[in-house]
């Protein structure tokens, strides 16, 4: 077996993928071969250093982007047996993109403002005073009859 083949075994050894008997044979070879010992030491050092390296941080705005895309690709389906309250809460939180309590508070506030506005519009307006003059037609006619002799 060549040193290149032995070093392929060293690579497998580091991954825990070398059978025990082959590993024993490999260690026997390494005790006699400086090149393979150096390869083993360097590869183990590289592996150790790489494993402890910090990775690039996940960009927070990507969460938002993915969340938006998920909502776009599949509309939310109401689960079976959902109560009206739960359904309303879900619809509100989805529609307003805010937690359900905040959405309900917003809705109530909107309703209150609507009622106030309606009362203002529909309330009776103050009317002008009209003096109704009722002519005493009958009496006038009677008096006229008396005076004119009709």
């Amino acid at each position: 077996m060549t040193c290149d083949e032995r070093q392929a075994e060293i690579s497998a050894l580091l991954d825990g993928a070398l059978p025990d008997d082959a590993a024993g044979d490999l260690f026997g070879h390494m005790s006699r071969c400086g090149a393979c010992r150096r390869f083993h030491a360097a590869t183990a050092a590289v592996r150790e250093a790489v494993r402890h390296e910090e990775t690039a941080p996940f960009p927070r705005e990507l969460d938002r982007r993915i969340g938006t895309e998920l909502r776009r690709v599949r509309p939310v389906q109401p689960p079976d047996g959902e109560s009206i309250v739960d359904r309303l809460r879900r619809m509100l939180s989805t529609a307003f993109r805010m937690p359900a309590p905040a959405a309900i508070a917003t809705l109530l506030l909107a309703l209150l403002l609507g009622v106030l506005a309606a009362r203002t519009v529909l309330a009776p307006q103050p009317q002008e005073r009209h003096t109704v003059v009722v002519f005493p037609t009958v009496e006038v006619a009677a008096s006229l009859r008396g005076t004119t002799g009709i």
Partner: protein
Amino acid sequence: MTSIPDIRLAFADGSSESFVRVYESTRGRLYAYALSMARERDLAADAVQEAYVRLFQNSPAIASPAVVVSWLFSTARNYLLNHHRLEKRFTPAEEDPASLADSAPEPFEAEDERAYLRRLVDALGPLHREAILLREYEGMSYDEIAKVTGVPVSTVKMRLFKARKALAERFEKRER
């Protein structure tokens, strides 16, 4: 964490837990992998988004949680691969990492060993860099790497060996 509600909101019916768990535990790793392969933040972000959107759409079909991670990596990888093909930048042929010994960057004076190693890994060709990333950074098994990359386990072993050999040779030179 303030950003996860954005993901939860997509599951207002309360079925979000399993997806959010997978998302929280894999998004950092998936992004790091995509960024290492793409070397462009926007492209890496697109690949990560594509992977989670597809998981979202296909989650009932992905029965086993054990395969979710390799499925996500594979989906992001395919996205990058298609993009590179479209851009005509991808060379599917097996590259020879031995050339790294000649072309690898020289260490800066007083450069941290890990930083130098990272630059050596970055200097590997995409297929060997990918093998190192998935094995050493992600801790994937040969089988998992084979699933992600769509090649036999024997090819995975060979890529890892060649990449390590190139890295070790360069690393040894620096140590002397």
